[in-house]
């Protein structure tokens, strides 16, 4: 064996444990999942029948799934905007000369350390108990009822909670990027008379475009796959009418898939939905990353 070949083998052997784990818990279940989506598997025992594309055809007749799909898109767009705007704003704050900026950094990041379920329950209490009692004592009609049980405001509560949780994490990425920009570039701009706003939009943002690529990717996938806050905060409710059918107003795709599989015990159908979910998310992510990559520049 040549030393080159030997080296390859060593590398492969070092990779093997992780590779085995990856194949066992990601690749194999994934392939099985695709396979089950073409059967009438019920989650127990062996697969009985292949049903072709019946599970997929069923999905397109399912108003609930369509509704989940649309509100997931809406949620994703709103969430990407708010999380990134807030994260960028606070990253500017904590990289400025402001006093106590390290405390702010820690403070903004802490919500991200709390689990989504706990967070959901805490905010549920805030939205359905604390805010209404404040609203009632101030005589504000919009606030005096729970914002969660109102189908028009429930999406706002989810975006608020997710932004509160996730902006601190994205902030870290922006902070790292801002600190990575060479001081000399910023100083040169200042000497040339560029104002604060111009410096941000013309110099900082283009130079940290790679941070936007990764942040937008993270928020896109995170919002699309949102489950824990969804289940704990709203549980998919309240109920609204969609195409004349009672539909869960805030049931995002992941929760819809979970409910199909486990509440209705319709495993194969849930699998088919999950496959579609995977394909759509992959397409969106590829589009987003390609588009963002084209915007990246070198200093």
């Amino acid at each position, binding site marked *: 064996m040549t030393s080159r070949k030997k080296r390859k083998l060593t590398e492969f052997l070092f990779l093997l444990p992780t590779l085995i784990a990856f194949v066992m818990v990601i690749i194999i279940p994934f392939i099985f999942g695709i396979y089950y989506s073409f059967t009438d598997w019920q989650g127990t025992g062996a697969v009985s029948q292949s049903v072709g594309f019946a599970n997929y055809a069923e999905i397109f007749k399912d108003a609930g799934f369509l509704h989940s799909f649309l509100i997931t898109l809406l949620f994703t767009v709103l969430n990407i905007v708010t999380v990134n705007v807030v994260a960028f704003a606070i990253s500017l704050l904590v990289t400025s000369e402001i006093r106590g900026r390290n405390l702010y950094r820690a403070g903004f990041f802490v919500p991200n350390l709390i689990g989504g379920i706990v967070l959901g329950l805490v905010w549920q209490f805030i939205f359905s108990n604390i805010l209404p009692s404040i609203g009632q004592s101030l005589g504000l009609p919009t606030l005096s009822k729970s914002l969660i049980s109102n189908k028009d405001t429930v999406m706002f509560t989810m975006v608020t909670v997710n932004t509160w949780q996730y902006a601190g994490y994205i902030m870290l990425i922006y902070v790292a990027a801002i600190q990575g920009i060479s001081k000399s570039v910023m100083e040169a701009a200042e000497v040339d008379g560029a104002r604060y706003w111009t410096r941000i939009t013309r110099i900082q943002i283009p130079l940290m475009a790679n941070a936007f690529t990764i942040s937008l990717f993270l928020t896109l996938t995170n919002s699309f796959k949102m489950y824990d806050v969804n289940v704990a905060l709203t549980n*998919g409710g309240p109920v609204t009418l969609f195409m004349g059918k009672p539909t869960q107003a805030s049931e995002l795709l992941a929760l819809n898939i979970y409910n199909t599989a486990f509440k209705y015990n319709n495993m194969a159908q849930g699998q088919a939905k999950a496959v579609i979910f995977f394909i759509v998310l992959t397409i969106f992510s590829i589009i987003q990353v390609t588009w963002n990559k084209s915007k990246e520049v070198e200093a």
Partner: protein
Amino acid sequence: MKKLIAIVLTLALMMTAASALADLVIVQNKVEITSQMEEFAKLYEEKTGVPVKVITGGGSSDYNTVLKAEMQSGREPDIFVIEGPAHYEMWKDKIADQTGADWIQYTSAAFMVDGKAVGFPVSVEGYGMAYNKEILDKAGIDPATLTTYDAYEAAFAKLDSMKAELGLDMVVSMVAGTTTGMTWVTGLHNFNVYLTVGNERNDTTYIDKVLKGEVDEERFHQYCQYVALIFKYSDPDMLLNGTQDSQLAAFANGKAAFYHQGNWMDPSLVGLNPSFEIAYAPHAFLHEVTDGILVNPPSWYAVNANGNVEEALAYLNFLATSEEGADYMVNKAAMVPAFTNVTLSPATPLSKSVMDWNAAGKTYDWQQYKLPDGFGMGTLGPIYELLASGAIDVDTFEVMMKDAIAGIAK
């Protein structure tokens, strides 16, 4: 090392020997009453000389694992717990017929299959319209008259008009929110009112129809009116945002005259120290009189046909018909026995009321668990919420419910 193996083997042998020594092995699932049950088993051994061993599996999923392990252990249990039809299907090859047993004459809650009694009811649970006796007395309403829709309509209206002087925030404390996960109250328990109220136990007319996607038009129409009536006199905020705790608190603090929950809430209810008398009134949704609450055992004891059937039947008979058995069930294990011959009363109000109704033989069946998975909570529940939030009226509610039910069949 050899020594260690020897010790382990000896211990293992001794353990097998211990269960082999017992003439009767019981596998059960209620962790909270393990010690009471073992105590009762000891008492049984003193009385009859038959050694009994109780094996407990914690929680419902663990219980299944324990049961499967015990069934394969070479010393099959003689008595084990089944939790419903699905469980029965799994074990039916092993389950013995108990039809001739003495205890059957004292209960209507046996697990019946094709006219044969195959399960001994471990206890019963029940729900109805729990009421605050003090408030009803002040309003001059006799709870015994609440046996028709019209009686409820009049009572609710009267209470509603006297809200201020009675200190009420709402007439009925009821929850229907999907956000708070309370759709089992509406989509399962309340829906069961339509399925069984007024019928003999084991009469499956309406559930059979529902499973075929049909409803009895007249009965269903009346049921929808009843749901609307309850919602009309409930607090809108409680309906949509109420949790199990806030629902209970409103009733326990005297802010609601009625409470739509079952006797499993007793431990929490007693914790809030209600100062008034509490009992159940029927869910009477028809114009005709229906006098009974909805009662069912959560689980049953099945006898293993391959085991010591004779001893097992004797044990169960002793449990149901002796004073010691009654004392164990009511005082020690704090359960509501399913047997009419037991005269002891539970100390907690809702359980006591369930017991009284059961002893009077005025009970209706639970059949909501025969609905397909997710149907009650996931499909019907949201329609109740739409009605509760005022998004639809009762006629639309009826149409939507029928549509949803028609969707079952396909």
